[in-house]
């Protein structure tokens, strides 16, 4: 009795796996060269706006400790 339940379980599982693989196999893919080129373009486009990449002047850095001004 339990073996039958197990085999039907395995069956359902196998069927799901096949279903999943079928879906995955049918998706559209592009070449790695095109995908890499797109990634590179994105990087260069946004590099100017990236503070961690470009560094920001100390006056704009909200985390830099501001030294107290001494007014004589």
């Amino acid at each position, binding site marked *: 009795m339990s073996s*039958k339940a197990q*085999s*039907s379980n*395995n*069956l359902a599982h*196998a*069927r799901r*796996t*096949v*279903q*999943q*693989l*079928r*879906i*995955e*196999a*049918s*998706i*559209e*893919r*592009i*070449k*790695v*060269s*095109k*995908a*890499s*080129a*797109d*990634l*590179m373009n*994105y*990087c*260069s*486009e*946004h*590099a100017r*706006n*990236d*503070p*961690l*990449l470009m560094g*920001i002047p100390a006056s704009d*850095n*909200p*985390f*830099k*400790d501001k030294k107290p001004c001494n007014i004589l």
Partner: protein
Amino acid sequence: MNNSQVEWGAAEDAAPYGAAASPGCRSPPPLLLLFFLLLHLKTGGASSPCDVMTAASAVSSEVQPNETLTHLKTESDTLKTKLEEERAKLHDVELHQVAEKVDGLGQFIMKTRRTLKGHGNKVLCMDWCKDKRRIVSSSQDGKVIVWDAFTTNKEHAVTMPCTWVMACAYAPSGCAVACGGLDNKCSVYPLSLDKNENLAAKKKSVAMHTNYLSACSFTNSDMQILTSSGDGTCALWDVESGQLLQSFHGHAADVLCLDLAPSETGNTFVSGGCDKKANVWDMRSGQCIQSFETHESDINSVRYYPSGDAFASGSDDATCRLYDLRADREVAIYSKESIIFGVSSVDFSLSGRLLFGGYNDYTINVWDVLKGTRVSILFGHENRVSTLRVSPDGTAFCTGSWDHTLRV
């Protein structure tokens, strides 16, 4: 060939299990043709693919379970090898080869600007608020604290009824935080400006899993939360009603992390688990769209590339890998012989050029995403780095560690 294409379309509609119709299949993929051939031979005379599809489900329920099982097994193996072949066909060049024309990055000097002390035990998770200055963090002692990163003041503190709060997230509006852990639930606490208000009283329990909560994240609004759990599933919940909107099954083991796609690219998210797989899901249908299994150990962290076309993952096998969604394969591995400790957390800089990885050997490695080389290594924590997030405006990143502190 034309005839079979037309019938193909019809077959897709008739398919009883509602497989998502592949967008514009101009020519039937060879592996599916193979399947049809096999089934054609088996059923002995189904005249069209349409009949074969419906016959397939009928046949498998009638025939002996053993027979169908082995048949399905061989079919899945065939599909898997075909999948690998298809992926390999498009692998014409490596990312770092294409990136050779790009300028190299100079030396980076990143310093710890703030150290947030206050947790009594290991910091397990943290998240930034959209206002770029507030941070919520959770720790093993059950405390969830909201900090102001500029002033290092603690704004709110909540004690959860459980220990090991492994997940916390800030709502997009900045008015609530969600957290969860060993209590198997995700609770949302609305944050009020009134300091005397008892936050714990306003708690709303949103998600219920059958095992620990490993990660949670608000979707674009305050109204929905996505959670992942040790029970191997991810789930989408409505905050107001606590109702389960969608559940995602497919991981064979605990799901450790998840990340939502950046809003321009739609309703998908990626999850990584102990079964070494990273799965990309469609939030509306609950279907797993893509799956990647190249890591050699548990995937601890996944993060989408800023453009949404790729994602990075960090794993206990000491490597970070970049997967491109449109090319459907792994395109880069970030590893070094000298790095043997697992990666607990990864995040990209704003432009996506830098990948930060928090490692279990107490360091943070900064990688050049395009060239695949390590740019910098940062020291400072006295125990393993458990969580790492770049701020929304990209000016800083925060790390949380088992040494009870957070550093910005």
